């Protein structure tokens, strides 16, 4: 039988409460608890100074509150991939002609027919499994001649609403949405949390879910269609020292409680790599590329 494990200290307190309550003495119960500990309360957001060093950004304000925006072009992230934005733009512009060759979904066709600055790449990070709050909405889009990452970070739980409202604005201004498993996960989570906060995400533009595209295009050629597997075969990259997805919620909770931004930079980097891989997979899909099995 699954029952929440009681720590020794909690059991003691609950027993004391039981005792005080037996006489209806709620006031006394409070005194007992107070005597046992003085609650350490963190007020306000957790140490933006440290975060500002580890992940430079700007505090943004909107009608729904404040949040932390980290805005970086790809060039700043990876010098090796300095040429990729040009390649990306060329593939998106060129894909129109080879339209029939693509075993494409309607959303993929929509992208092929659009401009390089049409797609909005999106990937979220959450505080746990389904039903949990969202703390990071990672976005990427083609701006000018550059792929630009914009990560909307809730520095604590109270900023979730602001990042959702900001995302709703960005989504409304985008021609297409590109995600990896976003149909089943990211958009559902965003809508559910949006409903809770009274943030309406409006209509989703044509949504290209690269998980579905990958399965359609490459199933059987690659061991599986997980993002990091595809990354090996198409981007010829392996992640070193990456924070595993399952460790992310706890790392974020630790960041909020203690303000240790080092772990936060790892999460931000993980999210950024996911977005970058999505762009590369999109290019592979549009250009009919096959997995590099020597990778």
């Amino acid at each position, binding site marked *: 039988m699954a029952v929440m494990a009681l720590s020794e200290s909690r059991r003691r307190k609950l027993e004391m409460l039981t005792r005080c309550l037996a006489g209806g003495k709620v006031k006394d119960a409070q005194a007992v608890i107070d005597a046992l500990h003085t609650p350490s309360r963190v*007020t306000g957001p957790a140490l933006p100074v440290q975060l500002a060093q580890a992940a430079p950004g700007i505090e943004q304000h909107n009608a729904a509150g404040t949040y932390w925006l980290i805005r970086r072009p790809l060039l700043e992230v990876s010098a090796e991939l300095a040429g990729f934005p040009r390649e990306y733009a060329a593939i998106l512009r060129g894909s129109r002609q080879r339209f029939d060759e693509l075993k494409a979904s309607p959303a993929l066709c929509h992208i092929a027919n659009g401009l390089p600055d049409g797609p909005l790449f999106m990937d979220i990070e959450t505080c746990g499994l389904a039903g949990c709050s969202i703390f990071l909405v990672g976005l990427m889009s083609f701006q000018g001649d550059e792929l630009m990452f914009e990560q909307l970070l809730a520095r604590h739980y*109270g900023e979730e609403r602001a990042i959702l409202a900001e995302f709703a604005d960005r989504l409304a201004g985008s021609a297409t949405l590109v995600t990896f498993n976003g149909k089943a996960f990211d958009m559902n989570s965003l809508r559910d949390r949006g409903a809770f906060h009274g943030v309406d995400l409006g209509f989703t533009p044509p949504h290209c879910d690269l998980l579905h595209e990958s399965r359609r295009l490459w199933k059987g050629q690659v061991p599986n269609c997980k993002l990091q597997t595809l990354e090996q075969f198409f981007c010829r990259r392996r992640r070193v020292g990456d924070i595993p997805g399952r460790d992310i919620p706890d790392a974020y909770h630790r960041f909020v409680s203690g303000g240790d931004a080092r772990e936060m930079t790892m999460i931000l980097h993980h999210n950024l790599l996911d977005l970058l891989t999505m762009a590369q997979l999109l290019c592979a899909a549009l250009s009919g590329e096959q997995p590099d099995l020597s990778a």
Partner: protein
Amino acid sequence: MDARAFLREVTTDRRYRGQVVHVRELPPRDAQYAQPAEPLPQPVASHLQRQGIGQLYRHQADAVDAVRDGKDVVIVTGTASGKTLCYNIPVVSALIENPSARALYIFPTKALAQDQLGHLQKWAADDEIREALRPAVYDGDTPSHNRTKIRSSASVILTNPDMLHVGILPYHGKWHQFLRNLRYIVLDEVHTYRGIFGSHVANVLRRLERLCRHYGSNPQIICCSATIANPLELTGKLTGREMTLIDRDGAPRGRKYFVLWNPPYIDAGENIARRSANVEAVELLCDLVQRKAQTIVFSKARIVAELVYKYATDALRRHPDLAKKIRPYRGGYLPAERREIEQQLFQGKLLAVSATNALELGIDVGSLDAAILVGFPGTICSTWQQAGRAGRSGSDSIVFLLAYNDPIDQYLMRHPEYFFGVPHENAVIDPQNPFILSGQLACACFEKPLSQEDEVYFGPQLEDLAADLEQEGQVHSIDGKRYWRQAEQPSAQVDLRTISQDTYAIVDISQNHRTIGQVDSISAPELVYPEAIYLHEAVPYIVRQLDTQAKIALVEPCEVDYYTQPVLANQCRIIEQRQEKPYRDGRLCYGDLDVTWQTTAFRKIRYYSMELIGQAALDLPAQTLSTTGMWFAPSEPMRQQLGQAGHNPVDAMVGVRNLMLAALPSLAMCDRRDISGQVDSSNLGTPAMFVYDRYNGGVGFAYRGFDLIEEWLKLCWNMVSECPCESGCPSCVGLANLRPPLHQDPDLGAGYPVPDKAAATALLKALLSD
């Protein structure tokens, strides 16, 4: 049926041996009808017309009016009095008037939700209602690919508290449309929400209400209950609202005869052994069936339901047309099989069912002619609920309560006036129990940050308990709000029930590993141990393997002339003493206990003769309940004093323990089934009384007793000294709260003797005098 004629025939039969010890005639009552204050919407009125319902009973009209006035109501009327209409009429009316309105129906079991789905589908078959009424069950069995559609399109959702707790509330974002438009919450069979389970459910309902407010709705609550002593108090605490009681039962009732039936002695002159109550039940059942009286037999153990069925069909082998109109019904049958039996009974295709209390709750099987209760069901509420299955309007019905050769049953046979006079039990809950509330607050915090305003829902301990969650690192506070700060979802770790919902599958290896039945994981080692005979619709299967990892029992059909009974061993071990204080000349202690039980062997019992034809040891792992409890060992001088006064000290302690178990619920606000106790001398070397919580980790009941020992013992003293009985009865020293033997034939044991009242009184006196 002509019940009087039946009784006359039975008592003048040459086999009759004076079993009838008492007959109580419950007078008939005419229907009392009433009009609702305002006419019902036309589609509702015509649906009722088509169902042959020309007028509403008085309680139904009362309920419709009260709900229309915006009141939160609790309806308490007899079995089969048409309680379902009390909520279906207002709900369907509201849905017709406002197509975006939603209703949530909560039933304690999945089976009840399925049964009510059937009713609603009948309503929805009407063209004028179909659009507005789109009912769907949403529980753990709902396939995940249907869930999204149900959330978005169903207008009435039928579920259970466990699913609400673990599968709906934590995902409220997905339910925002439903919650925003929620107009009615219907809670049926609320009398089952008592004790630990009820205290949890009360908090689950607070969480639901908090989220409704968040999304902008304020639903009305409609409760239905079987008869209990305190429906207003129970539902008030359960919902946190002021409830309006609807209890002017207007349903008609035929005359009912309630017969106390005691099997005769079979050892001429010695008067110790009685004939088997199971066999007596079979004879009565066959007599009734041969007179075409539709009959339900209620047995206390699943094995007895199977045996009664087997014996009855054996006895009726010359009447195969009758024999095939009897079926057994019990927990552990697959849902589809249960539905089929319910429907066959309802449609009159079956003449009789041999059931367990699985059929006690409100599944609609229609009204029957006769009910046979094999053994006292344990509570007055259950007894009357089972008895309520018999009773047609405009015709007589008959109920037999058959006694086992067990002290409690025999006491009732000797004292019919006690049986008919004793009030229904109180249903007690304590939503403020810190142990329960603490876990529930974690769940609430996950769903929406906690703030001071939430005291409205969770009471004055909110701040203390939330501060404690923070200390433990489970929540984090920012600007006066506390946020859940763990990746794990708390509701998966908070069990609403004392009995685990885990089940074992019983798989027939001769039929491609088809699952033929289920059993809950707690009692699997008592039912499907290796070499056990598992009876399913009286077909014997032998258990080849019990896989405790995969939770599967592998069985195959066999031909044997015996059934099997587990031999159980119980033990209570002190793990750690946490507190102690001097009490009189002894020490009163509180601490951690491990309560274990284990199937150590089994016996082969020949059908009919109940002859023991074999026995074998078993090597099965023990099951453990790690809980908290209190214990007290009377001092040596105290025991000597008792002995000198001619009392057996251990008997005295058993009596006092029983009294303590009976008194603790009113002190600790729990249900009798939430606590248990033992008298044991293996722990301390001297006999000691143990009382503990029947919930993993403990919930503070025994602790409250430990803390308030003086008050507790005084309550015991009052109970025993005010009890008018001579030498002990089920109301004082007699009725211990022992785990019901779900898989043991009560016929094979002698039960527990009623301890000596004088001995218990003497011990209590010693414990209370300075």
